[in-house]
């Protein structure tokens, strides 16, 4: 097991290096710089802009900049944001609580919908419940989040005037009122993301359970006269979870990465909106840091999923 872990971690290093090289080159090839807005401002002479570029080391050759970034990263220095001139890690840490709260709750909501609905639908295939659940799931994941988001804003904020559609990190209230306000402003982004994700997962859970429910060991359990509840939970769901765990684990980096479109619509200050504004402003250190952390998380959660397999299915061993 330890050997297996070590080997996997060793393989991760070249992949991470490769990812960082590709990211850096693509960003270096992209046109523009963080001082674009200065270019059209006649009050700022062009050489001031050239100086600014030079002061941030943007005129050095790409490979030099890359190694500079890499060694700094190895020492744990994430660099400075070009546009806000503060350390990148600080920027990310500021965004992290909101991201985890909003995106994390939406993932939990998605799981809470997908697991029971998927399992229940699969145990009664082609029943009325299954048909309705299927139809809703199809509608759920065919509607893009930016559409459902706008629809919800129109309905709940503008027509009914129940919920605010601008997410605020500094609420004026305290105590219970704070929780209530927080709930009111988070409910729409959480619902939009959670329902979308939940719809997709419901389909997976249903088909995974359907695959297992027809197997011989389930029939045997039924023949022994075990109660249906126990069969479903102990003998079906546990076996059906393996593909679902992969999916959910691979979704976990998204909790960190945020949801770019939804965050933009509801003005949630998450990592997704940090990433998109950094991309629009050509803020290379921030883009590098966020994308790099996401790729680390993808590799890490892949490993977590592989280890979880062993726990769910003891037949799988690690060598």
């Amino acid at each position, binding site marked *: 097991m330890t050997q297996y872990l070590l080997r996997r971690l060793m393989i991760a290093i070249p992949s991470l290096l490769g990812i960082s090289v590709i990211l850096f080159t693509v960003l270096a090839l992209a*046109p*523009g*710089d*963080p*001082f*674009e*807005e*200065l*270019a*059209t*401002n*006649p*009050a*700022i*002479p*062009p050489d*001031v*802009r050239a*100086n*600014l570029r030079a*002061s941030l080391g943007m005129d050095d050759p790409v490979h030099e900049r890359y190694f500079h970034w890499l060694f700094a990263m190895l020492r744990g220095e994430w660099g*400075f*944001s070009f*546009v*806000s*001139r*503060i350390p990148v890690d600080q*920027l990310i840490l*500021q965004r992290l609580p909101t991201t985890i709260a909003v995106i994390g709750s939406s993932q939990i909501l998605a799981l809470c919908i997908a697991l029971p609905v998927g399992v229940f639908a699969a145990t009664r295939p082609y029943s009325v419940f299954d048909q309705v659940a299927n139809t809703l799931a199809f509608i759920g994941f065919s509607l893009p989040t930016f559409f459902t988001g706008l629809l919800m*804003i129109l309905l709940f*904020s*503008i027509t009914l*005037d129940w919920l*605010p*559609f*601008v997410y*605020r*990190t*500094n609420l004026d209230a305290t105590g219970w009122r704070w929780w209530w306000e927080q709930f009111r402003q988070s409910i729409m982004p959480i619902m939009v993301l959670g329902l979308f994700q939940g719809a997709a997962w419901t389909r997976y859970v249903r088909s995974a359970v359907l695959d297992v429910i027809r197997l011989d060991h389930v029939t045997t359990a039924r023949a022994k006269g075990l109660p249906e509840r126990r069969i479903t939970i102990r003998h079906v769901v546990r076996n059906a979870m393996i593909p679902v765990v992969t999916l959910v684990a691979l979704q976990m980096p998204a909790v960190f990465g945020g949801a770019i479109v939804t965050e*933009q*619509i*509801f*003005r949630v*200050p998450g990592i997704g*909106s*940090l990433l998109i*504004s950094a991309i*629009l*402003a*050509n803020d290379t250190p921030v883009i590098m840091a966020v994308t790099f952390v996401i790729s680390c998380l993808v590799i890490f959660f892949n490993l977590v999923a592989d280890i979880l397999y062993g726990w769910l299915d003891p037949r799988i061993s690690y060598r």
Partner: protein
Amino acid sequence: MEDDLRQMIGRVQRGTLSRRGFVRRMAALGVTAPMATQLLAITGAAPAAAQSVPAYRPTRRGGGGPLKILYWQASTLLNPHFGSGTTNQDASRVFYEPLAGWAPDGTLHPILAAEVPSIENRGLAEDGRSVTWKLKRGVKWHDGQDFSADDVVFNWEYAKSPAVAAVTSGSYRDVNVVKVDDYTVRVEFAQPTPFWADAFVAAVGGIIPKHLFKDFAGSNARDAPTNLRPVGTSAYKFVSFAPGDNLRAEANPNYHVPNRPFFDTLEIKGGGDAVSAARAVMQTGDYDYAWNMQVEDEILKRLEAAGRGRVNIVEGGSIEFVQLNATDPHTEVDGERSSIRTQHPAFRDPAVRQAMALLIDRNALEQFIYGRGGPATANFLNNPPRFRSENMRWEFSIQKANEALDAAGWVRGRDGIRAKDGVRLKFVYQTSVNAPRQRTQAIYKQAAQRAGIELELKSVTASVFFSSDVANPDTYTKFYADVQMYTTTMPQADPERFMNQYVSWEISSKANNWQGRNIVRWRSEEYDRIFRESQSELDPVKRAALFIRMNDMVVGSNHIIPLVRRPTVSASLNSLRPVLSAWDSTLWLLSDWWRET
């Protein structure tokens, strides 16, 4: 006319002619009322500041509750010397104040200065080589320290230092600043400078405290903790800031202007998009003010109909215009297209340029595309009104365009496109990707077709088009096309930095890495001469006349075809009384915002 004017202004100054009488007589001469008052203002015959800012009614400080402002771009930095975008400059302005700001009518309004320098109060030197600012006494920083001339001098040293790499350095490095006494500073210029109100004024002029920045005035400037926790002199004190998200402030109980500010707390939220920002103000009323409404006028009108909020339109100098390349973009000379050594084969004929100017229907642009956000104009230099030419007219006539081309010998070929001596009237017309611009392109193309001119439309992503990437052939400064269109902005109420777009030494070329401001590459010795004259002309009336002549020259050449003015558009609740100016930051006089109850 100029002599008459001078005599009349003299009579107003002596008191034998009333200001109202002056305005009436000027109207008879064809000068509009705002222009007439401007003339009085710039010659010092009228108390400019008194009229330029709307009345402030509240009679005590505070008690106004919260003020909530929505920006669809978020600020990331709170140091006026580092803020590279409008949002950052605006956010810094919440805390830092300049010596003076630009009022909506293009006159100066004193903020940290005790008065606006003029020849009369001996602030301006007769020879135009220096300006002396008297500072307001009794101003305190938010931390209780006194504001003095040392702070002002420090800002000059800080901004001009190459190690600090401030975006404002262009305004400070060519001047010399001397402390006269604790409350007086003198800005000295190497040459006579008619436009003296740059350093310490408006967006580049926010004064930062010496006592908090003096240890960070070198290459460690970015490490200053005060960059994100500002301590200024303004009406609102810092509470908290999350870069790219929101900014909070509270009323400064010791503000140096009585009865201000009105609001107790201030919140500026960033991010999202313009349309939903407009909704949050005009439809749900969650916010009081939304910045820069780049939204179709149609939608804004519908939201206004709800009766909760209104749209504020503030005239500035920005203009959407078309350039007809003076050089040949299809011939390469020394690795450079559109080289100044070539001439455009078709546009060197004035008849073709005239036809091009006749073929764009500005009325349609105003009516169907831009609405209130884009009134049609015949001038390149539109504002402040004292610089606006009355001589230019625009016209849309396909028939006249055809006649002009016929007369000049451009004959339609079999495909309907006109040609002469092997040169066909087929042009590449480029602009950035932006819905109103693509619609304008389509309107222009249709009209041109009916006059035998084919326009090949090209649109480039804004981040490429407006970049300074030397390796990219599609940037607007390279202008590797026959025709192009974009908006140029005028950051100050003085046209010197605006009209330098047509002087020969600013021509954009490979030699200056395409950083020259003269992108259309139009050249005129006379224009150069007049521009140089304006740079040393200290008489404001004569100087305004020079700029009007420059406008008439470029527009008359038809190499530049002005389309629509682009005033700044914002949304606010009906009860809010914001003080807005297009010549300065949106929040330039936040201390004077209040709410009617």
